[in-house]
């Protein structure tokens, strides 16, 4: 496995114990740049922005913060910050006046809304889970319950601030402890909530479209599906499990040449509808760059083909969505169409899993972190890169962070010694390394040149000598 090291982490000072989901990367001030939000068990909420080592905003709330999320939960057209404490107080903050606040203003920023919801919230996501175009809030509780809430607007009060409350929509009581919750798109394009269950299993909850008030059709639309996955093969059926959905695995590309390439690369011979092209990414990159002489041109072509949404207005069913499941005993699985595409066993306890585009090709990689700091970045064709963070990790997030006007892929490690380390811009061009010899082997021009100077194609030692001379020798 390739091992890399990342350098120049941003170091943030933040005291206290941070719950696993009380850290979040999101654009709370709506400037297009993500900030880092962290809450501790004493009720301190800190917001870090850019390279500043001190929080730009600190808010104190009552109770232990267990989960924070950023999203447009109030459907205002911009993001707000939702922070939930262990005893079920849900605070909503709106940073429409920007971060840092007015220095003359005394005390903390006041929430735009505070509401009691059932206690023991451990995870929270803000997503549109029923396809109505409006965001809902989904909470996972430690007492095996998943609830969804929707913001009901009660009209504007004086000062232009929104007024309303969160209204419960659904409640599911599951059989086992919830690992975490994530949202994912089903193959038919409808949203669903994935709930991780012990032993590498999960529930897919489909709230369905919220139609009229007819109770029967409402129930019909809802569905709960249990997926055992590889539970029979797993070592420990009670092991804590994490899940991450909506991983952009690949794009369907309109050009016939491209799709034939991915078809030929497919491992599973039978091409059923929506079959998963297992081998792509790196393999495609190579086949695309058949002519290295026109390398840069090809690169652009490739990038444009990787952005089908820009070249083609038709967005429907262009993105292949998968999700990843990780267990604490070190199994990492990528699932697509309810089939395990690959699984990776490591000797470290994976407690957190995220999706992040590290290579900059718009396909997302799976990023998994273990308690001891070992972090695995795995792409769709199982090429894997490891990074060893030098300290034990209390909680981990992978996402995009705004630094110097750019959104860069970043890793956030919250440690046990009052420090948060954020590695900005961990992007790397490729997950696998290759040698020049391997690249030139596929190059017809190179073979022609070798013929011309009378060098045998199989003579590696001579080729090495020639390569070396061309790069370092005196050509003139």
């Amino acid at each position, binding site marked *: 496995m390739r*091992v*890399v*090291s990342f350098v120049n982490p941003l170091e943030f000072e933040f005291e206290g114990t941070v719950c696993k989901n009380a850290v979040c990367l999101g654009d709370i001030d709506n400037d297009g740049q993500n900030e880092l939000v962290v809450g501790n068990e004493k009720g301190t909420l800190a917001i870090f922005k850019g390279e500043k080592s001190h929080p730009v905003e600190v808010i104190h709330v009552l109770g232990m913060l267990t989960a924070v999320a950023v999203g447009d939960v109030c459907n205002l057209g911009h993001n707000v910050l939702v922070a939930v404490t262990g005893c079920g107080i849900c605070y909503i903050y709106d940073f429409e006046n920007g971060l840092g606040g007015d220095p003359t203003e005394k005390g903390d920023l006041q929430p735009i809304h505070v509401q009691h919801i059932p206690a023991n919230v451990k995870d929270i996501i803000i997503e549109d889970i029923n396809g109505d175009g409006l965001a809902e809030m989904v909470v996972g509780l430690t007492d095996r319950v998943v609830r969804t809430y929707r913001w009901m607007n009660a009209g504007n009060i004086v000062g232009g601030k929104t007024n309303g409350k969160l209204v419960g929509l659904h409640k599911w009581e599951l059989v086992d402890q919830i690992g975490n919750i994530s949202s994912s798109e089903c193959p038919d394009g409808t949203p669903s909530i994935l709930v991780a269950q012990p032993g590498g299993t999960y529930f897919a909850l489909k709230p369905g479209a919220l139609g009229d008030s007819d109770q029967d059709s409402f129930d019909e639309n809802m569905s709960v599906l249990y997926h055992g996955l590889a539970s029979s093969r797993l070592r420990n059926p009670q092991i804590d499990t994490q899940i991450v959905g909506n991983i952009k695995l690949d794009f369907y590309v309109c050009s016939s040449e491209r799709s034939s390439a991915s078809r030929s690369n497919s491992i599973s011979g039978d091409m059923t509808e929506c079959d998963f092209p297992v081998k792509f990414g790196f393999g495609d990159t190579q086949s695309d760059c058949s002519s290295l*002489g026109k390398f840069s041109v090809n690169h652009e072509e490739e990038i444009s083909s990787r952005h089908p949404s820009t070249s083609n207005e038709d967005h429907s069913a262009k993105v292949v969505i998968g999700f990843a499941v990780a267990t604490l005993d070190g199994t990492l699985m990528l699932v697509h169409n309810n089939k395990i595409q690959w699984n990776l066993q490591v000797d470290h306890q994976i407690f957190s899993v995220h999706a992040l585009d590290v290579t900059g090709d718009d396909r997302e990689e799976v990023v998994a972190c273990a308690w001891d700091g070992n972090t695995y970045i795995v792409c769709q064709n199982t090429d894997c890169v490891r990074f060893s963070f030098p300290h034990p990790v209390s909680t981990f997030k992978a996402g995009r962070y705004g630094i110097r006007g750019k959104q860069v892929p970043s890793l956030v490690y919250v440690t046990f010694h009052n420090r948060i380390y954020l590695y900005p811009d961990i992007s790397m061009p490729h997950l696998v390394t290759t040698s*020049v010899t391997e690249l030139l082997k596929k190059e017809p021009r190179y073979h022609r*040149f070798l013929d011309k100077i009378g060098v045998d194609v199989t003579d590696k030692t001579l080729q*090495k000598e020639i390569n*070396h001379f061309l790069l*370092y020798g005196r050509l*003139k």
Partner: protein
Amino acid sequence: MAASLSKPSDISNINLNEAHFFSLPSQGNLYTLTPLTDAKGYTKLLVASLQRKIYCLEYSNGRPVIREVPFTYIPGGAEIISIDAVNRSVIQEDFIVGITIIKKDDATGQSSCFFNVYSDWDLTCDSALDIVSQNCLPLELEFIPYQLYHTKTQGKSGWETIWVLSGSDCQIHLYLSDEESHGYQEIDGSEAFPEFALIKGITLWVDIEYSSDNKRRVTAASGENGRVHLFLVNLETSPKVDGSRVMEWDYPVPSVKIFQLISHIPVPNALQSFVSSVPAKAEDKRVEESNVVVPSSLESCFVYKNVFDECTGCLLDDTDANDVVTCCIVCDIDHDGQNEVLIGTYGQVILIFKQAESGQWDSHHTVTVPDPVLSMIHCDVMGDGTLQLIVMTISGIHIFQHDPWEMASLLLNRLENLLDPKTANSDIEGEQLNGREIAKVEMEKEE
């Protein structure tokens, strides 16, 4: 990734990516990383960690492999100070590996030092590293060893490999193999290396460069007392010191490097007819044009041009701003035919300096690593003809690779220019080439 964020990447065409990282169980030091090239030209790295373990790092089938090499005669509790390795043969694998260790006696509290030479005398078979590691010849030392270095010397039967070991007794010791006793013994160096007698103080680093005709050599030695000795030795009859220069600093000088601005690489036979032969004049002046880079540990580093002539010095900016300077290498890291100076620091950065047209050495690029740098090598461990930057930090070995896609396209373009320049000129892609290359193409057009 590992490239520094503080420099915009577009100013340089050094696209270094970290290909791999090996962590070491215990840290090494300035003297514990050595390359070992076999007869086929494939390079592996020998890395010694303080606590007795020696690893061999190589690429097999394109994948990095690290394994521990079980060198014998390294007793428990011993610590490795320095390691050096060389292949004596050009046609087969005839490795000799030298390791110096220090061992503290628990009972008496006194420490003893050893110089272990590992080699295989049975030349009938290719001696792999594993066999070599089992054939040890220990030599007890009366002093604490520092850098272990090897060079060649004119012996009774032609050129021989000789070990050069600097010690805490302010001397530089020489060890030569003895064919009769099949052993190694210390020899008196006053005849073969008269310059060593002139060095005062503990030597931290020795660098010896022979001229291509083997008639002269330049010896550089940097000391703990801040002195850098440079000698021009005439070898035409018996070795005689022709010129010398001493520079003094206030702080120890951890390394010294003699270099030429342009490295000479022999033209491969297959390309002979396409490359115009290098003018003989440049060849002759090779040693006289010796440049020396002197990294002072706590002061600014300097590059001296023509040390035995005008000896003009050039300060390397900001080299005192990144903690202690630990090592330096000279290599062509941007593939323009001209060497750059790389300075490794304890402050977790590698500073790359390039000579500008004016002769000034300017900061060109910075590579940041997560730990303090101890040692660097620029060599080809991947075996594809490109060189990788190997950096040993206190936590392990980083392998930085030039972007292979870029390298492959650069290589193809140069090959095309060389083989059929006429067609190459028409579809040259300017942005893939550096300035030097473009200038060359323009010259060809003028012709």
